[in-house]
Protein backbone atom coordinates (compact mmCIF):
# COMPACT_ATOMS: atom_id res chain seq x y z
CA UNK A 1 0.00 0.00 0.00
CA UNK A 2 2.90 2.34 0.72
CA UNK A 3 3.77 2.49 -2.97
CA UNK A 4 0.22 3.51 -3.85
CA UNK A 5 0.37 6.36 -1.33
CA UNK A 6 3.85 7.51 -2.33
CA UNK A 7 2.94 7.49 -6.02
CA UNK A 8 -0.02 9.75 -5.30
CA UNK A 9 -2.65 7.23 -6.42
CA UNK A 10 -4.14 6.63 -2.98
CA UNK A 11 -4.92 8.67 0.14
CA UNK A 12 -4.57 6.87 3.46
CA UNK A 13 -6.76 8.62 6.06
CA UNK A 14 -7.87 7.78 9.59
CA UNK A 15 -10.83 8.72 11.74
CA UNK A 16 -10.35 7.89 15.41
CA UNK A 17 -12.92 6.98 18.04
CA UNK A 18 -11.15 7.96 21.26
CA UNK A 19 -12.03 9.87 24.39
CA UNK A 20 -8.37 10.94 24.63
CA UNK A 21 -7.22 11.63 21.05
CA UNK A 22 -3.70 12.61 22.12
CA UNK A 23 -3.11 8.90 22.78
CA UNK A 24 -3.57 8.30 19.07
CA UNK A 25 -0.97 10.96 18.37
CA UNK A 26 1.50 8.93 20.45
CA UNK A 27 0.41 5.75 18.68
CA UNK A 28 0.94 7.26 15.22
CA UNK A 29 4.35 8.58 16.26
CA UNK A 30 5.36 5.14 17.53
CA UNK A 31 4.13 3.35 14.41
CA UNK A 32 5.61 6.05 12.14
CA UNK A 33 2.28 6.52 10.41
CA UNK A 34 2.03 10.01 8.95
CA UNK A 35 -1.55 9.84 7.64
CA UNK A 36 -3.99 12.65 8.17
CA UNK A 37 -6.25 11.76 11.12
CA UNK A 38 -9.65 13.24 11.95
CA UNK A 39 -11.00 13.00 15.50
CA UNK A 40 -14.51 11.68 16.13
CA UNK A 41 -14.67 11.46 19.94
CA UNK A 42 -18.44 12.01 19.81
CA UNK A 43 -18.89 9.15 17.31
CA UNK A 44 -20.82 11.43 14.97
CA UNK A 45 -20.32 8.79 12.27
CA UNK A 46 -22.41 6.50 14.48
CA UNK A 47 -20.15 3.50 13.90
CA UNK A 48 -21.11 0.46 15.94
CA UNK A 49 -17.62 -1.05 16.13
CA UNK A 50 -14.00 -0.53 15.15
CA UNK A 51 -11.89 -1.10 13.15
CA UNK A 52 -13.70 -0.45 9.90
CA UNK A 53 -11.98 0.07 6.56
CA UNK A 54 -13.78 2.00 3.83
CA UNK A 55 -12.69 2.32 0.21
CA UNK A 56 -13.89 5.65 -1.22
CA UNK A 57 -13.58 6.60 -4.86
CA UNK A 58 -12.23 9.90 -6.15
CA UNK A 59 -15.76 11.40 -6.17
CA UNK A 60 -16.33 10.67 -2.47
CA UNK A 61 -18.59 7.64 -3.02
CA UNK A 62 -18.19 4.57 -0.80
CA UNK A 63 -17.24 1.51 -2.85
CA UNK A 64 -16.33 -1.07 -0.20
CA UNK A 65 -16.89 -1.39 3.53
CA UNK A 66 -15.21 -4.11 5.56
CA UNK A 67 -13.55 -5.06 8.80
CA UNK A 68 -9.91 -4.91 7.77
CA UNK A 69 -8.37 -5.28 4.33
CA UNK A 70 -6.76 -8.72 4.29
CA UNK A 71 -6.59 -9.34 0.57
CA UNK A 72 -4.25 -6.64 -0.65
CA UNK A 73 -4.01 -8.03 -4.18
CA UNK A 74 -7.75 -8.07 -4.53
CA UNK A 75 -7.83 -4.46 -3.33
CA UNK A 76 -5.18 -3.45 -5.87
CA UNK A 77 -6.71 -5.25 -8.83
CA UNK A 78 -10.28 -4.47 -7.87
CA UNK A 79 -10.87 -1.08 -6.29
CA UNK A 80 -7.62 0.54 -7.42
CA UNK A 81 -7.99 -0.47 -11.07
CA UNK A 82 -11.70 0.31 -11.40
CA UNK A 83 -12.66 3.52 -13.19
CA UNK A 84 -15.67 4.81 -11.31
CA UNK A 85 -18.30 7.05 -12.85
CA UNK A 86 -18.96 10.36 -11.13
CA UNK A 87 -22.32 10.52 -9.35
CA UNK A 88 -25.18 12.29 -11.13
CA UNK A 89 -25.18 15.11 -8.59
CA UNK A 90 -22.08 15.78 -6.48
CA UNK A 91 -23.94 16.57 -3.28
CA UNK A 92 -22.57 16.02 0.19
CA UNK A 93 -24.26 13.42 2.35
CA UNK A 94 -24.31 14.37 6.02
CA UNK A 95 -24.04 17.69 7.70
CA UNK A 96 -21.82 20.46 6.60
CA UNK A 97 -19.15 22.22 4.63
CA UNK A 98 -15.96 23.42 6.31
CA UNK A 99 -17.31 26.96 6.61
CA UNK A 100 -19.64 25.81 9.43
CA UNK A 101 -16.87 25.55 12.01
CA UNK A 102 -18.00 28.74 13.74
CA UNK A 103 -19.84 27.93 16.95
CA UNK A 104 -23.27 29.64 16.99
CA UNK A 105 -24.98 31.15 20.01
CA UNK A 106 -26.44 28.70 22.46
CA UNK A 107 -29.93 27.55 21.37
CA UNK A 108 -32.98 29.29 22.84
CA UNK A 109 -35.56 27.75 25.14
CA UNK A 110 -37.69 26.39 22.26
CA UNK A 111 -34.87 24.50 20.59
CA UNK A 112 -35.53 20.84 19.87
CA UNK A 113 -33.16 17.97 20.66
CA UNK A 114 -31.59 17.93 17.19
CA UNK A 115 -30.72 21.62 17.31
CA UNK A 116 -29.38 21.30 20.86
CA UNK A 117 -27.22 18.31 19.90
CA UNK A 118 -25.95 20.03 16.77
CA UNK A 119 -24.91 23.10 18.78
CA UNK A 120 -23.24 20.95 21.47
CA UNK A 121 -21.32 18.83 18.97
CA UNK A 122 -20.08 21.93 17.13
CA UNK A 123 -18.88 23.46 20.38
CA UNK A 124 -17.08 20.25 21.36
CA UNK A 125 -15.49 19.68 17.94
CA UNK A 126 -14.29 23.26 17.68
CA UNK A 127 -12.19 22.71 20.81
CA UNK A 128 -13.34 26.04 22.28
CA UNK A 129 -13.04 24.98 25.89
CA UNK A 130 -14.79 28.14 27.09
CA UNK A 131 -17.97 26.83 25.42
CA UNK A 132 -17.82 23.46 27.20
CA UNK A 133 -20.36 24.45 29.87
CA UNK A 134 -22.85 25.44 27.15
CA UNK A 135 -22.20 22.16 25.32
CA UNK A 136 -22.81 20.09 28.46
CA UNK A 137 -25.97 22.08 29.18
CA UNK A 138 -27.24 21.63 25.61
CA UNK A 139 -26.68 17.86 25.69
CA UNK A 140 -28.44 17.68 29.07
CA UNK A 141 -31.44 19.50 27.61
CA UNK A 142 -31.43 17.21 24.58
CA UNK A 143 -31.45 14.18 26.88
CA UNK A 144 -34.38 15.60 28.83
CA UNK A 145 -36.33 16.19 25.61
CA UNK A 146 -35.58 12.76 24.15
CA UNK A 147 -34.52 10.41 26.95
CA UNK A 148 -34.71 7.35 24.65
CA UNK A 149 -31.98 8.72 22.36
CA UNK A 150 -28.83 6.89 23.42
CA UNK A 151 -26.62 9.03 21.19
CA UNK A 152 -27.23 12.18 23.22
CA UNK A 153 -26.60 10.23 26.42
CA UNK A 154 -23.28 8.94 25.04
CA UNK A 155 -22.21 12.37 23.79
CA UNK A 156 -23.20 14.01 27.07
CA UNK A 157 -20.78 11.56 28.71
CA UNK A 158 -18.03 12.49 26.26
CA UNK A 159 -18.59 16.21 26.94
CA UNK A 160 -18.59 15.72 30.72
CA UNK A 161 -15.39 13.72 30.63
CA UNK A 162 -13.78 16.36 28.39
CA UNK A 163 -14.74 19.01 30.91
CA UNK A 164 -13.37 16.83 33.72
CA UNK A 165 -10.00 16.73 31.92
CA UNK A 166 -9.95 20.53 31.53
CA UNK A 167 -9.49 23.45 33.87
CA UNK A 168 -13.25 24.02 33.73
CA UNK A 169 -13.88 20.68 35.51
CA UNK A 170 -16.60 20.26 38.08
CA UNK A 171 -15.88 17.68 40.72
CA UNK A 172 -18.72 15.33 39.77
CA UNK A 173 -18.12 15.47 36.00
CA UNK A 174 -16.42 12.07 35.73
CA UNK A 175 -19.16 10.30 37.71
CA UNK A 176 -21.82 12.07 35.66
CA UNK A 177 -20.02 10.99 32.46
CA UNK A 178 -20.03 7.36 33.57
CA UNK A 179 -23.71 7.58 34.51
CA UNK A 180 -24.53 9.03 31.07
CA UNK A 181 -22.59 6.26 29.31
CA UNK A 182 -24.37 3.66 31.37
CA UNK A 183 -27.73 5.17 30.41
CA UNK A 184 -26.69 5.04 26.76
CA UNK A 185 -25.62 1.42 27.03
CA UNK A 186 -28.87 0.48 28.78
CA UNK A 187 -30.69 1.86 25.70
CA UNK A 188 -28.49 -0.02 23.22
CA UNK A 189 -26.41 -2.77 24.83
CA UNK A 190 -25.03 -3.80 21.43
CA UNK A 191 -23.13 -0.55 20.91
CA UNK A 192 -19.53 -1.72 21.10
CA UNK A 193 -18.02 1.77 21.19
CA UNK A 194 -20.21 2.78 24.14
CA UNK A 195 -19.44 -0.47 25.98
CA UNK A 196 -15.69 -0.07 25.59
CA UNK A 197 -15.93 3.56 26.75
CA UNK A 198 -17.29 2.44 30.12
CA UNK A 199 -15.00 -0.57 30.32
CA UNK A 200 -11.84 1.48 29.87
CA UNK A 201 -12.62 3.25 33.17
CA UNK A 202 -14.33 0.38 34.90
CA UNK A 203 -13.14 -2.56 36.96
CA UNK A 204 -10.90 -5.02 35.18
CA UNK A 205 -12.95 -7.49 33.19
CA UNK A 206 -12.88 -11.24 33.69
CA UNK A 207 -10.88 -11.18 30.47
CA UNK A 208 -8.94 -7.90 30.87
CA UNK A 209 -8.69 -5.88 27.65
CA UNK A 210 -5.31 -4.32 26.78
CA UNK A 211 -6.68 -0.86 25.98
CA UNK A 212 -3.38 0.97 26.39
CA UNK A 213 -0.83 -1.70 27.21
CA UNK A 214 1.11 -0.45 24.20
CA UNK A 215 1.86 2.93 25.81
CA UNK A 216 4.90 1.94 27.93
CA UNK A 217 6.37 -0.03 25.00
CA UNK A 218 5.80 2.87 22.64
CA UNK A 219 7.59 5.26 25.00
CA UNK A 220 10.57 2.92 25.40
CA UNK A 221 10.97 2.36 21.69
CA UNK A 222 10.58 6.04 20.85
CA UNK A 223 13.24 6.92 23.42
CA UNK A 224 15.59 4.33 21.94
CA UNK A 225 14.98 5.94 18.54
CA UNK A 226 16.02 9.28 19.97
CA UNK A 227 12.54 10.78 19.81
CA UNK A 228 10.61 12.51 22.58
CA UNK A 229 7.28 10.69 22.99
CA UNK A 230 4.25 12.95 22.60
CA UNK A 231 2.96 13.94 26.03
CA UNK A 232 -0.44 12.67 27.16
CA UNK A 233 -2.97 14.94 28.83
CA UNK A 234 -4.38 12.02 30.81
CA UNK A 235 -2.27 8.96 31.64
CA UNK A 236 -3.89 5.57 31.13
CA UNK A 237 -4.52 3.76 34.41
CA UNK A 238 -6.45 0.98 36.09
CA UNK A 239 -8.60 -1.05 33.72
CA UNK A 240 -6.97 0.60 30.71
CA UNK A 241 -4.16 -1.92 31.22
CA UNK A 242 -4.84 -5.65 31.03
CA UNK A 243 -2.99 -6.44 34.22
CA UNK A 244 -3.69 -9.86 35.73
CA UNK A 245 -6.63 -9.76 38.10
CA UNK A 246 -5.40 -9.45 41.66
CA UNK A 247 -6.88 -11.58 44.34
CA UNK A 248 -9.04 -9.57 46.64
CA UNK A 249 -7.23 -9.18 49.97
CA UNK A 250 -8.85 -8.91 53.34
CA UNK A 251 -8.42 -5.34 54.59
CA UNK A 252 -7.21 -6.61 57.97
CA UNK A 253 -3.97 -8.00 56.46
CA UNK A 254 -2.51 -4.52 55.77
CA UNK A 255 -1.51 -2.07 58.49
CA UNK A 256 -3.60 1.08 58.40
CA UNK A 257 -1.21 4.06 58.29
CA UNK A 258 -3.24 6.46 60.51
CA UNK A 259 -5.72 4.27 62.35
CA UNK A 260 -6.05 6.72 65.26
CA UNK A 261 -6.62 9.73 63.05
CA UNK A 262 -3.71 11.66 64.49
CA UNK A 263 -2.43 13.30 61.32
CA UNK A 264 -3.62 16.89 60.87
CA UNK A 265 -6.35 17.32 58.31
CA UNK A 266 -5.81 19.36 55.16
CA UNK A 267 -8.36 22.02 56.16
CA UNK A 268 -6.79 24.53 53.78
CA UNK A 269 -7.41 22.11 50.90
CA UNK A 270 -3.89 22.19 49.52
CA UNK A 271 -4.92 19.11 47.58
CA UNK A 272 -8.30 18.67 45.91
CA UNK A 273 -9.72 15.17 45.88
CA UNK A 274 -12.28 13.87 43.39
CA UNK A 275 -13.87 10.45 43.49
CA UNK A 276 -15.75 8.33 40.94
CA UNK A 277 -17.18 4.81 41.02
CA UNK A 278 -17.46 2.90 37.73
CA UNK A 279 -20.16 1.67 37.84
CA UNK A 280 -21.84 3.28 40.81
CA UNK A 281 -24.40 0.53 41.36
CA UNK A 282 -23.66 -3.16 41.73
CA UNK A 283 -25.50 -6.41 41.78
CA UNK A 284 -24.32 -9.17 44.06
CA UNK A 285 -20.93 -10.47 42.90
CA UNK A 286 -20.22 -7.48 40.65
CA UNK A 287 -17.11 -5.30 40.87
CA UNK A 288 -16.54 -1.56 40.43
CA UNK A 289 -13.46 0.56 39.86
CA UNK A 290 -13.07 3.46 42.27
CA UNK A 291 -11.04 6.37 40.94
CA UNK A 292 -9.59 8.77 43.49
CA UNK A 293 -7.86 11.78 41.91
CA UNK A 294 -5.55 14.18 43.74
CA UNK A 295 -4.75 17.63 42.34
CA UNK A 296 -2.56 20.28 44.00
CA UNK A 297 -4.71 23.35 44.53
CA UNK A 298 -3.68 26.11 42.12
CA UNK A 299 -5.52 28.74 44.14
CA UNK A 300 -3.09 28.46 47.03
CA UNK A 301 -0.15 27.49 44.80
CA UNK A 302 0.28 24.09 46.40
CA UNK A 303 2.96 21.69 45.18
CA UNK A 304 3.70 18.07 45.94
CA UNK A 305 6.78 17.60 48.13
CA UNK A 306 8.58 14.53 46.73
CA UNK A 307 11.46 14.41 49.20
CA UNK A 308 9.98 11.80 51.53
CA UNK A 309 7.43 9.37 50.09
CA UNK A 310 4.49 9.23 47.72
CA UNK A 311 0.83 9.72 48.57
CA UNK A 312 -0.51 6.93 50.76
CA UNK A 313 -4.11 5.94 50.22
CA UNK A 314 -6.19 3.88 52.61
CA UNK A 315 -9.67 2.66 51.72
CA UNK A 316 -12.04 0.84 54.08
CA UNK A 317 -14.64 -1.40 52.45
CA UNK A 318 -18.14 -1.18 53.93
CA UNK A 319 -19.74 -4.33 55.31
CA UNK A 320 -20.42 -6.87 52.61
CA UNK A 321 -17.78 -5.58 50.19
CA UNK A 322 -14.14 -6.54 49.58
CA UNK A 323 -11.29 -4.59 48.00
CA UNK A 324 -8.33 -5.68 45.88
CA UNK A 325 -6.21 -3.89 48.46
CA UNK A 326 -6.95 -1.35 51.20
CA UNK A 327 -3.55 0.30 51.00
CA UNK A 328 -1.58 1.72 48.13
CA UNK A 329 1.28 4.18 47.80
CA UNK A 330 1.34 6.27 44.64
CA UNK A 331 4.46 6.83 42.56
CA UNK A 332 6.14 10.22 42.53
CA UNK A 333 8.61 11.83 40.11
CA UNK A 334 12.31 12.35 40.78
CA UNK A 335 12.18 16.13 41.15
CA UNK A 336 11.80 17.58 44.64
CA UNK A 337 8.50 19.38 43.91
CA UNK A 338 5.86 18.82 41.25
CA UNK A 339 2.31 19.71 40.26
CA UNK A 340 0.95 16.70 38.42
CA UNK A 341 -2.40 15.08 39.06
CA UNK A 342 -2.11 11.73 40.83
CA UNK A 343 -4.71 9.03 41.02
CA UNK A 344 -5.45 5.79 42.78
CA UNK A 345 -7.60 3.04 41.30
CA UNK A 346 -9.24 0.63 43.71
CA UNK A 347 -11.31 -2.40 42.77
CA UNK A 348 -14.21 -3.22 45.02
CA UNK A 349 -16.58 -6.16 44.82
CA UNK A 350 -19.99 -6.50 46.41
CA UNK A 351 -20.22 -9.81 48.23
CA UNK A 352 -23.20 -10.13 50.56
CA UNK A 353 -24.06 -6.46 51.12
CA UNK A 354 -27.85 -5.96 51.25
CA UNK A 355 -29.70 -3.77 48.78
CA UNK A 356 -29.22 -0.09 49.50
CA UNK A 357 -26.58 2.59 49.68
CA UNK A 358 -23.13 2.00 51.10
CA UNK A 359 -20.38 4.51 51.77
CA UNK A 360 -16.78 3.59 50.98
CA UNK A 361 -14.59 5.66 53.27
CA UNK A 362 -10.92 6.36 52.94
CA UNK A 363 -8.20 8.90 53.31
CA UNK A 364 -4.94 10.01 51.79
CA UNK A 365 -1.73 11.05 53.54
CA UNK A 366 0.62 13.32 51.66
CA UNK A 367 3.45 15.81 51.78
CA UNK A 368 2.52 19.13 50.24
CA UNK A 369 4.16 22.56 50.12
CA UNK A 370 2.32 25.87 50.24
CA UNK A 371 4.43 27.27 47.41
CA UNK A 372 7.63 26.41 45.56
CA UNK A 373 9.70 27.65 48.51
CA UNK A 374 6.89 27.69 51.03
CA UNK A 375 6.16 25.70 54.13
CA UNK A 376 5.89 21.96 53.54
CA UNK A 377 3.30 20.02 55.50
CA UNK A 378 2.22 16.44 56.10
CA UNK A 379 -1.53 16.25 55.86
CA UNK A 380 -4.47 13.85 55.77
CA UNK A 381 -7.63 14.27 53.71
CA UNK A 382 -10.64 12.05 54.13
CA UNK A 383 -12.97 11.13 51.27
CA UNK A 384 -15.98 8.94 50.67
CA UNK A 385 -17.62 7.30 47.65
CA UNK A 386 -21.24 6.21 47.52
CA UNK A 387 -22.18 2.86 46.04
CA UNK A 388 -25.63 1.50 45.39
CA UNK A 389 -26.26 -2.19 45.93
CA UNK A 390 -29.23 -3.18 43.79
Amino acid at each position, binding site marked *: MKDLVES*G*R*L*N*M*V*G*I*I*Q*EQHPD*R*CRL*FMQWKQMGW*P*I*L*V*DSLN*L*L*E*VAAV*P*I*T*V*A*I*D*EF*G*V*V*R*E*VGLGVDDVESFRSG*FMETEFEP*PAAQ*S*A*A*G*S*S*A*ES*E*WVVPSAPGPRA*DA*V*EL*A*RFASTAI*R*SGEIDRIDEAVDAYRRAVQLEPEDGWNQFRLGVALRKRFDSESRQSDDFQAAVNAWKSALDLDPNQYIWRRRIQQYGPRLDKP*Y*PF*YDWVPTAREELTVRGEVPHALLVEPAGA*EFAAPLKDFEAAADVAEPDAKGRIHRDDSEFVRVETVAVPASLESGEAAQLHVTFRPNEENRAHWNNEVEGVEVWVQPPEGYVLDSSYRQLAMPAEAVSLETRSAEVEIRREWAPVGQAKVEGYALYYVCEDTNGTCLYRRQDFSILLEAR
Partner: protein
Amino acid sequence: MRSAVLVAAAALAACGPPERVEAPDMRIEVGRPFPQVLLPMLEDGSPATLARFRGRKTLLHVFASW
Protein backbone atom coordinates in the same frame (compact mmCIF):
# COMPACT_ATOMS: atom_id res chain seq x y z
CA MET B 1 -46.83 44.94 33.01
CA ARG B 2 -49.91 43.24 31.50
CA SER B 3 -49.63 45.18 28.22
CA ALA B 4 -45.95 44.27 27.95
CA VAL B 5 -46.83 40.60 28.37
CA LEU B 6 -49.54 40.84 25.67
CA VAL B 7 -47.15 42.52 23.23
CA ALA B 8 -44.54 39.83 23.85
CA ALA B 9 -47.07 37.03 23.37
CA ALA B 10 -48.27 38.55 20.09
CA ALA B 11 -44.71 38.85 18.83
CA LEU B 12 -44.02 35.21 19.70
CA ALA B 13 -47.17 34.00 17.98
CA ALA B 14 -46.21 35.90 14.82
CA CYS B 15 -42.97 33.88 14.60
CA GLY B 16 -44.82 30.61 14.02
CA PRO B 17 -43.73 27.16 15.22
CA PRO B 18 -39.94 26.51 15.23
CA GLU B 19 -38.60 24.77 12.11
CA ARG B 20 -37.80 21.13 12.74
CA VAL B 21 -34.07 20.61 12.24
CA GLU B 22 -33.35 17.22 10.71
CA ALA B 23 -30.47 15.08 11.95
CA PRO B 24 -27.93 14.41 9.19
CA ASP B 25 -27.84 10.96 7.57
CA MET B 26 -24.63 9.22 8.67
CA ARG B 27 -25.00 5.93 6.85
CA ILE B 28 -21.74 4.50 5.49
CA GLU B 29 -23.02 2.34 2.64
CA VAL B 30 -21.68 1.16 -0.67
CA GLY B 31 -22.93 3.43 -3.44
CA ARG B 32 -23.63 6.41 -1.15
CA PRO B 33 -21.41 9.45 -0.71
CA PHE B 34 -19.37 9.21 2.48
CA PRO B 35 -20.99 11.45 5.15
CA GLN B 36 -19.38 14.87 5.04
CA VAL B 37 -19.24 15.38 8.79
CA LEU B 38 -16.92 18.16 9.93
CA LEU B 39 -14.28 16.83 12.33
CA PRO B 40 -11.15 18.34 13.87
CA MET B 41 -7.79 17.27 12.49
CA LEU B 42 -5.68 15.51 15.13
CA GLU B 43 -2.63 17.51 14.07
CA ASP B 44 -3.96 20.99 14.76
CA GLY B 45 -7.69 20.86 15.52
CA SER B 46 -8.60 22.57 12.22
CA PRO B 47 -11.95 21.55 10.68
CA ALA B 48 -12.01 19.05 7.86
CA THR B 49 -14.31 16.67 6.03
CA LEU B 50 -13.34 13.83 3.75
CA ALA B 51 -14.27 16.09 0.83
CA ARG B 52 -10.72 17.48 1.01
CA PHE B 53 -9.44 14.11 -0.22
CA ARG B 54 -11.57 13.99 -3.36
CA GLY B 55 -9.78 13.76 -6.69
CA ARG B 56 -7.91 10.64 -5.54
CA LYS B 57 -9.03 7.26 -4.22
CA THR B 58 -9.02 7.01 -0.42
CA LEU B 59 -8.61 4.12 1.97
CA LEU B 60 -10.20 5.25 5.22
CA HIS B 61 -9.55 3.49 8.53
CA VAL B 62 -12.01 4.16 11.32
CA PHE B 63 -10.18 2.92 14.40
CA ALA B 64 -9.01 3.54 17.93
CA SER B 65 -5.55 3.12 19.43
CA TRP B 66 -7.06 0.80 22.07
